[in-house]
Structures are given as C-alpha cells and as structure tokens.
C-alpha cells in the first residue's frame, strides 16, 4: 500500500464507510421488500447476497485498521458484481413498472418495484471500488484519476439527486401528509448542488461540508420518522410483521447518510489535493 497522509487515509475510510452504509440500507430494504414479494423471482435474492458481501469488504476498509483490509481479487469482484446487479436490478424494476397496464403511469411508479432503489447497490459497488483504487492502485480506475476527489464528488452528487428523486416520488405517493416529508426533498438537493459546484470549481467549500453533514443526519433522523410512520398504520408496532412492510420503509433514509459520508470523503480529498497544490 502506498504511503498516504492521515487525511487521505481518513478520506478513503469515509468513502468506504459511505459505501458500507449504502449497502446496509440496500441489504435491509431489499431484504424486506423482496420478502414481501415472496422472492418470486429467484434473482431477487442476488441484491441481498451482493450487498452483504459489499458490507463485509467495505466495512473493513472503513474500519479503524483499513491497512488490514484484504486486497484480493475477491474485493474487486464483489464491487463489480454489486455495480452490475444494481444496473440489472434497475432493468428488472423498470420492466416490473412498464408491464403494468398504463405503463409509465404514476400509480405504477408508486406501487410497482421502486425503479431507483437498485441504483443504490450500484453506488455502493462504485464507491467501494473507488475506495479500493484509492488505497491500492494509486488512485486510478483505468484512465480516471480519483485522487483529487472531484470524480467521487460528482458521482456522489448524482447519487444524491437520484435518491432525492426516489424520495420525492414516494413522498408524493404519501401526499406529503406530514410536513417533515419535505425535508429530504429540500436539504439533500442543495447539498448535491453545492458538492457538484465544488467539484466543478475544484474548491471544497465549508458550506458543502455543513450541508453534507446535515444530509447525513437527516438520513438517520428519517429512520425515526419512518418508524413513526409504521406506528401510524393499523395496529402500530404491535402489528410490526405487517406494518413494517405496509408502512414507510424504515431502512431507506440512511441511503442519504451513506452518500453524504462518501461526499465528505470526496471533499476531504479535494482539500488535501489543494494543500498539495499550494505546497508545490
């Protein structure tokens, strides 16, 4: 492993940590939702396996001793598989929506397989691969140089926008009946835009750090709100076996947290690269 300064090492841990949180969200969400769908298609088990593997590899890289993380072909393959399964899942989910009468009708987007959800797995794979590259391959994926953090910032920003779109659609399905449902539609987009602007300008701004921090916190607070949403279904938490599936998905809001943490890693890389430039 190349010698890195402390900040760079922390940045890699943040990117890997973001990927871990995303994978945890995917594992628990797809676990619940695909269970609700009775695993009718055997392929529905794949995101569970790959997100579980992703958690294993990324968590070690994010942990206190990232130097002990395995640098094997297995890691590479796991990230590649996660990325691919996310993309394939996107296709499956889109097909599930489009085969319904009315096709791209809102009611099908509301109640069909959530089109955006599998992309979270792709992002977990991509971020995991990125963290790997940063710590092993001199920060390169093919011709793409990740070291200055800008590409990661861009990917994270796009990921946030996609997650916001998903939340906006499903909160619209719930008619924004609780005003707090607007929070994930308002804050993360600002964070995403700020992060994208930083990436384009190559200027890591403190406001972006604050926005990403808020977004990360919102993802966790969202778990609480969704748990309350479950309680508002018939029978509340006493009827958890039905209401966990019928109510708002408890595991999904941390997807924001995962992306925001990865974004913070990207910002840290940008700051380090900037310092290096000014020293040079």
């Amino acid at each position, binding site marked *: 492993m190349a010698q890195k300064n402390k900040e760079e090492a922390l940045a890699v841990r943040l990117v890997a940590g973001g990927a871990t949180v995303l994978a945890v969200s995917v594992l628990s969400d797809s676990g619940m939702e695909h269970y609700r769908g009775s695993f009718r298609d055997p392929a529905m088990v794949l995101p569970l396996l790959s997100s579980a593997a992703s958690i294993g590899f990324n968590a070690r890289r994010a942990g206190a001793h990232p130097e002990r993380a395995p640098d094997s072909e297995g890691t590479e393959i796991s990230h590649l598989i996660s990325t691919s399964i996310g993309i394939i899942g996107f296709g499956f989910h889109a097909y599930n929506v489009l085969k319904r*009468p*009315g096709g791209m009708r809102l*009611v099908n987007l509301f*109640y069909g397989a959530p089109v955006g959800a599998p992309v979270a797995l792709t992002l977990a794979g991509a971020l995991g691969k990125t963290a790997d590259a940063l710590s092993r391959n001199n920060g390169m994926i093919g011709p793409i140089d990740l070291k200055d953090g800008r590409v990661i910032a861009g990917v994270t920003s796009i990921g946030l926008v996609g997650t916001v779109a998903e939340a906006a659609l499903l909160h619209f*399905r719930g*008619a924004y*009946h609780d005003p707090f449902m607007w929070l994930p539609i308002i804050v993360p987009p600002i964070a995403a835009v700020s992060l994208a602007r930083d990436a384009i300008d190559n200027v890591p701004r403190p406001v972006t750090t604050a926005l990403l921090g808020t977004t990360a916190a919102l993802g966790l607070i969202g778990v609480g709100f969704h748990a309350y949403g479950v309680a*508002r*279904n018939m029978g509340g938490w006493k009827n958890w076996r039905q209401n966990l599936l019928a109510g708002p998905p408890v595991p999904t809001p941390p997807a924001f947290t995962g992306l925001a943490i990865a974004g913070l890693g990207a910002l840290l890389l940008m700051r380090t690269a900037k310092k290096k430039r000014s020293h040079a």
Partner: protein
Amino acid sequence: MSSDPQENPRARDGRAPDVFTPGGWVPMREHDDADEVDFAIVGTGAGGGTLACKLAEAGFSVVAFDAGPYWRPLEEFASDETHQEKLFWTDQRIVDGNNPIKMGSNNSGKAVGGSTVHFAMVSLRMRPEHFATRSKLGYAVDWPIDWQEMWKYYAQVEQALHIAGPVNYPWGPHRPRYPLRPHPLNAAAEYLARGAEALGTKWTETPLATVSAPIGKSHPCVYRGFCVTGCTTNAKQSVLTAWLPRALKAGAEIRDLAMVGRIETGKDGRVTGLHYIRNGQWRFQKAKNVIVAGYAIETPRLLLNSACDRFPDGLANSSGLVGKNLMVQLNQAAWGQVKDDVRSYKGPPSLAVSEHWNYTDTGKDYDGGWSYMSQGPLPITWAKSLAGGRGLWGQALIDEMARNNHSVGLKMVGECMPDENNRVTLADEKDQYGLPITRITYALTDNDKRMRDHAVRFMRDSLQATGATECWEEMDDTCHLNGTARMGDDPATSVVNADCRSWDIPNLWVCDGSVFPTVGGVNPSLTIQALACRTADRIKAMAARGEL
C-alpha cells in the same frame, strides 16, 4: 341495561361514542325536548350528517336524529357479510311495479352515518352537462344549480374526506388535485384498465373516500376488502368517521335509535318540531327549522306521514311530486373467467373506473350517461349473483364458487330517467313503530333498458378484449335511490328550491338524494355531500340577512 347499541341509545348523558378509540367517548352537548333548537335534522347520512356538522360549526343549535344505532367500527364490525347486515335498513316495505327494486342492502342504511357506513366509497363528480340535461343534452330536467357551483362544493367535500384519487382526471374540465394519491390497483382493476386500453378508451384510478396515507386518527387503508360491509379500521371516510366527530365537537347533538315519525305544523303553516320515538317513548322536539334527510324512501314517507288539516296531501307537496320521480341507478354487470388468480375481493371493490360513456354522447341509442367500475364481490354476494343472476344451483353453484378466484367483472352505474310513475307511496300496513310503511313502485323506462343493453355489451367486449372467457351478464341489479323530492326553479314542478328549502313551508328543508332532479351516471354520495355543504352556506347567508 343492555349495552347492545341496537337496543339502547348510546349518545346520551352528555357524551357520544368516540369512533376512533375502543370504548372511548367524546362530550356531547344535549338539548331538552322543550328547547326550540335552530335545526332538527332527520337522518345522519350523507345529507343530514354533513349538514349537522356544517350548521353546528356555523354556530346553530342542532339535533340530528337517526333511527339506527351508533356503531363503534373498531370493535363492532365483523369480517362477516351476514353479521354486517345489521347496517342495512331492512324494515318492512312493499315493492312492486314492472321492475321491483331489491331493497335493504346496497341501497339503504340504518345506522348513525347512514348508508355511508357501508358505501363503496366511490366519490365521483357528476359531469357538468348532467346538471343541465334538458338545455344541454335535450332530455329530462335541469338542476336549478349551476355546475360550476356544484364543482366548487365537490372540491370542498373532496378535501374534507381526503379523497384518494388519480393525479390527473382524464374526463371533464380541470379539477383540483385530489388530496391523497390513488390506491394501488388490484388485479380486477387491472382487467378494467387492460380492457379499456384494448378498446381505445380511457380509464383511471377511482377516487375513493378511504385514505391512502395516515390522516388524523384514520390509518391508511389495509385493503381488507370488506368496505361494503363496514370498514373496521376507519380508513373509510364515512359520515360516521369524517363529519360527525366534527359535528359533535362543534356542539351538535346526535340522537341514535330515534325514529322520527311525524313533523308537526303550527297554525301559521310553519313546522314547529318533530315527533320521534326513542327508548319506546314518543317525544316531541321543538325546532325552528326541520331538515329532512332520510334518503329517497324515508324522506317522502315522513313528508307524506306528516299530513295534517292544513296540508292534507303531506308536507311540501303542493306540486303533488313528493314521492314521485324515484330514480335508481342501473347496476348491471358483465362477468368472465380468466386463467390467472384475480382474487377480486382484495382491496376496495372498485379501484378502477371508466367514465367514457358519461362524457361521450355519440354512438348511443339512448339518453343519459353511465360509468363502469371493476368489481370485488364478497363470497355471499357472489353466490347470490351466481344463483339469482346466472341461475346456478346445487353442484353447479358449488363448482362455480370454487372458481371465484378467477372470476372478474365490470359493473355499471347508469343514469335512469325520472318518471312520475316511479314513486313512493304509503301502504296501509304499519311497521314496528306503528307508522304506515312505504310502497315502492318501479319500472325501467325503455331508455333505461337501451342503456342497460348497450352497457352490458360494452363491458362484455371489454372483458373479452382481455382474454376473459365464459362471459355472462347480470341483468337484474340496481343501486342508489334518488329523486322523490325534486329541487327546481318552479314551485309547480318541484318540491324544494335550489337551497333545498321547501316551496310550501319556509322552515322545512329536504337535503339528501331525494332532491336530485336527475341522477347522472355516477354514485351520488359526493353530490349529496356537496349539496349539503352548499345548503349550509346558503342557510348561513340567509340567517345573516334574517331570512330564515
């Protein structure tokens, strides 16, 4: 004393049931019989319950009477069709005519909240032109109210009931977005959608009065499917759960198990109050105004039963039209069998709708409009359809019932023409209260029959376009009751004016489905509630001007 709500009144001693809390109560303002209340309302359904809320909120003193019990849906509604017949008005009535109406299930209710306690929650607006069928489409009579005004009140009711409907409604003028998003389609609704698409017509998710998100104390609908036998979760926005809690909060009194038998008239020709029986005792409630909202059978019955020396033909009946122009709606169906599991009884029964033939005037050999919806009959209802509508019995019926999961159907709600020969009159027989029962005389007009024939043909085509086989038509069913105290602009040809105020007696009002001059091709509950909201606004305005 027994706690059976069918035996002993519950709304008394200053409290009424809290329908949202098992065993709970809410405080209720009570009035003495001798208090001359501003409004005594007969009936607590879509018309009376809504008015009780609106008038109480406007500061009037209100007592609303209902012959039925005050149910607690969370505790007392079973997932059992037979048990839930307790929600229906099954008192004795005589039906005759060429097409006698089947009374006592889908077309009436005897409970606080009226038939909205077991309605299918379908909340459609009448097409604008259907408020002026004579001048716009050349048949029947015009309403005395402009469609734009009605549509304004529709929006108000849709907000109050948190209607879950499509994001964009495909027919008619622009309407505001429904407060909640549509419910998911069940397989039966998908068959309607596929059929409509195959035939090149539009379809949409049915706007329903059951919440798709948690609202107040109502949990989101759990798609249990027993909607028409009474919702046990309070997702349904019935008058019992939506308007009456507000009414009680605003100071209205509800008297359950209180059958009103007669409205009293004073020497000046104004009504002075009403006689009602509660706890086996006849009592007299004094009132400055009486509003009759007993639906199209009990409303004319009460008006006719209240005949006195001054009004020997019954109250508000100088036109002779009380009880006349009864209109049902056509409720015929087409059914078929498909390969996949439909389980149409899952979820609300009518999740998809087509109003194509409400908004299309060409290609018809009849006047009027109709809509059709996907269906989800519960087992006993289905058995009755197969036995009565299809003539199956014995082993054939059992075999067919076993295939129920693969049955799929479409059912119409069609506009019947007003006809004075279709009427409610008093019979000589008396009921358990000692009141003369009604004779309900009905015959479909030729126009109705032509509509029916076209509709079942079209619905059958739609089913067949989705691959359904063994299609058959259920020809003998009706729903809803309207039109026996018609509103209009002319005292000679109507019973009440546009404000639901009787022409003959200024402090006697009628506000329910009986005032409909025409019924349109949609379920009437939303229209009744819109009318009630409008009437309340008109009463407020008239009271402010001292015109009551």
